């Protein structure tokens, strides 16, 4: 249909070699100036606060503390990943925390009162999460109730259901030695850790190179090879540093009688990477992901383009609640038990805060999966650093105040950036 249009394209023939690098850098700076900051603020923030805590508190970056930080961050990051989908549509799920709590309670009850094996319990919790998400999404998309109201109602109701399920004893202890507990409390063997890192880095490099070659073959401006190499080396170095430090033995006493070593990264890291890859791929490379962004950006335009908006809307709630269920399981693994107040309190706020700090907009249409990871790490570093820094009876009070301040800062930043762009 546009076959007779060749000559006009010729002038756009992309530059190669060192010139391409200059063009790439110039375009990146232009994007930053235009308000498309991407992950830059979250990375800068993460580096700054990590440096701060590393200076004021000896041992903040020790292997022991790093492990604590990672397993603390895991449930927050998983929940934030699900919330990114809901936030992309400009919706909110206030009940993600208590949904996770309820699902982990269902899992615990299946395990302990009905004697089911661990995977039946996990499956039960996950299915419960998906059903909850579907019902909430249906209420939002078909009945037209604002998501704030729906999820505020379920936030309260699920808290009650968890209380009823767990009962008066206050908590249910998960059976020792269950693979569930291993997720957060046992470690990937060193050889496997390094192998997985190798696979991840190789895969990352392969995708970047295939992308660049495809664009070159299509006659489009490709990412300069120097940039790709720099990115791959960066990922490899960061991954190696992490895997190396996690490979150090963290058990202080090792002798002839007590020889068990605590070394290797927690299994939760593998779960996080897996979930990240799946959802990042979904958002950035599939039609479904493109439609999620379109509905978040301009619902009417998406509808006129033939996107079934209600289906997209229901699906993001299903994804969010499903991820909340996984987050609940991870949290239960961390605590080795399910409390009657599981998922209540600030669980949800930390996850929303993580997504927003990472760069996801509360107004819809803007956000990426990496936001959940970076923001979740920022939140975990703050909580972990503060709890070490401020001891005594007021410590948790300060923790809340600082977390709140950071959330407000991030949301304010989001609003300012958005304001600057919309003119």
């Amino acid at each position, binding site marked *: *249909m*546009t076959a*007779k*249009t*060749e000559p*006009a*394209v010729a002038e*756009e023939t992309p530059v190669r070699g060192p010139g391409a690098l200059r063009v790439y850098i110039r375009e990146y700076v232009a994007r930053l100036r*235009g308000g*498309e900051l991407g992950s830059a603020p979250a990375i800068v923030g993460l580096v700054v606060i990590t440096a701060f805590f590393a200076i004021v508190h000896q041992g903040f970056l020790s292997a022991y503390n790093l492990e604590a930080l990672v397993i603390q961050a895991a449930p927050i990051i998983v929940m934030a990943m699900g919330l990114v989908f809901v936030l992309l549509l400009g919706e909110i799920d206030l009940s993600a925390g208590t949904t996770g709590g309820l699902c982990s309670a269902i899992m615990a009850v299946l395990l302990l009162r009905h004697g089911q094996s661990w995977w039946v319990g996990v499956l039960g919790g996950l299915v419960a999460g998906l059903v909850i998400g579907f019902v909430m999404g249906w209420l939002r998309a078909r009945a037209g109730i604002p998501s704030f109201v729906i999820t505020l109602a379920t936030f309260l109701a699920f808290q009650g259901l968890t209380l009823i399920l767990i009962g008066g004893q206050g908590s249910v202890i998960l059976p020792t030695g269950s693979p569930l507990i291993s997720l957060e409390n046992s470690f990937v063997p060193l050889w496997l850790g390094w192998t997985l890192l190798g696979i991840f880095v190789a895969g990352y490099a392969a995708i970047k190179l295939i992308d660049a070659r*495809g*664009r070159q*073959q*299509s*006659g*489009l401006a490709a990412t300069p090879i120097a940039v790709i190499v720099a990115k791959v080396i960066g990922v490899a170095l960061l991954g190696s540093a992490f895997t190396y430090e996690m490979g150090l033995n963290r058990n202080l006493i090792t002798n002839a009688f007590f020889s068990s070593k605590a070394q290797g990264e927690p299994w939760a890291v593998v779960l996080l990477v897996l979930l990240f890859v799946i959802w990042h*791929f979904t958002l950035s*490379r*599939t*039609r479904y992901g*493109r*439609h999620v*962004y*379109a509905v*978040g*950006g*301009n619902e*009417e*335009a*998406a509808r*006129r*383009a*033939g*996107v079934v908006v209600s289906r997209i809307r229901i699906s993001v709630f299903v994804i969010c609640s499903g991820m909340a269920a996984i987050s609940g399981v991870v949290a239960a693994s961390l605590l080795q038990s399910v409390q009657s107040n599981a998922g209540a309190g600030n669980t949800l706020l930390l996850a929303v805060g993580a997504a927003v700090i990472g760069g996801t907009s509360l107004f819809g*249409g*803007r956000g990426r999966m990496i936001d959940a990871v970076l923001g979740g790490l920022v939140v975990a570093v703050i909580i972990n650093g503060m709890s070490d820094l401020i001891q005594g009876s007021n410590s948790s009070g300060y923790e809340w105040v600082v977390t709140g301040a950071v959330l407000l800062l991030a949301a304010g930043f989001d609003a300012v950036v958005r304001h600057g*762009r*919309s003119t």
Partner: protein
Amino acid sequence: MKTLELKDVGKSFGPVVALSGVDFSAEAGDVTALVGDNGAGKSTLVKCIGGIHRVDTGEILVDGTPQQLHEPRDAARLGIEIVHQDLALADNLDVVGNMFLGRERVNRLRTLDENTMEKLAAQTLSSLGVRTVRSVRQRVANLSGGQRQTVAIAKSVLWSSKIVILDEPTAALGVAQTEQVLDLVRRLADRGVAVVLVSHNMNDVMQVADSIAVLFLGRMAAQVRRQDVSQTQVVELITSGRSGALGLPAESRGAAQ
């Protein structure tokens, strides 16, 4: 044969008669202006053609064949594209994403074929002589009003629509941008598309239209060739439904009375 033809079309909303006995036609290669005062029925007519409203009486013919338009998808299947002022684009997607929205190309692995889409988008824009859109990878939010309108119009070219209806394309634009969009409208028609231009702006209409259809209170006052009328006559038709020998008979003006 007319690309688009409406015969004796009527549409009522309860007791309110929005359109009555409307005849209208648009030919390939022509810009057909659809003008009329507020409430004359322009939007209703456009929505009937776009399949958003069903007509009560009369028929809609595309390439001489009567067609039933029940929903927007029917219109899209027939190659009818409506370009709305503000509703067409998602700000957070780039130009390519918007032009292919809802019709994304996927490769063998069912993932988005960004390279093919980017190439086709760039080719389409340059084939329309568009020089103002610097990169097809910039977000639509960063485009000016004229550039946005350009992208929305180029989308209809990309999907090789036969009939493109532009709803007030220059309403919010400055002088230079209006000029660019009108240029584009002309080139679109020159490619053999039947362009329907809904507009309030007499200057635009007189500058670019080949044929002018004037709605007056839900009835077609007249559809005339551009060179046969003066601007004054068109304005008279819009405001009173008749001008000299043209227009509605004096005793039966308006359907809504």
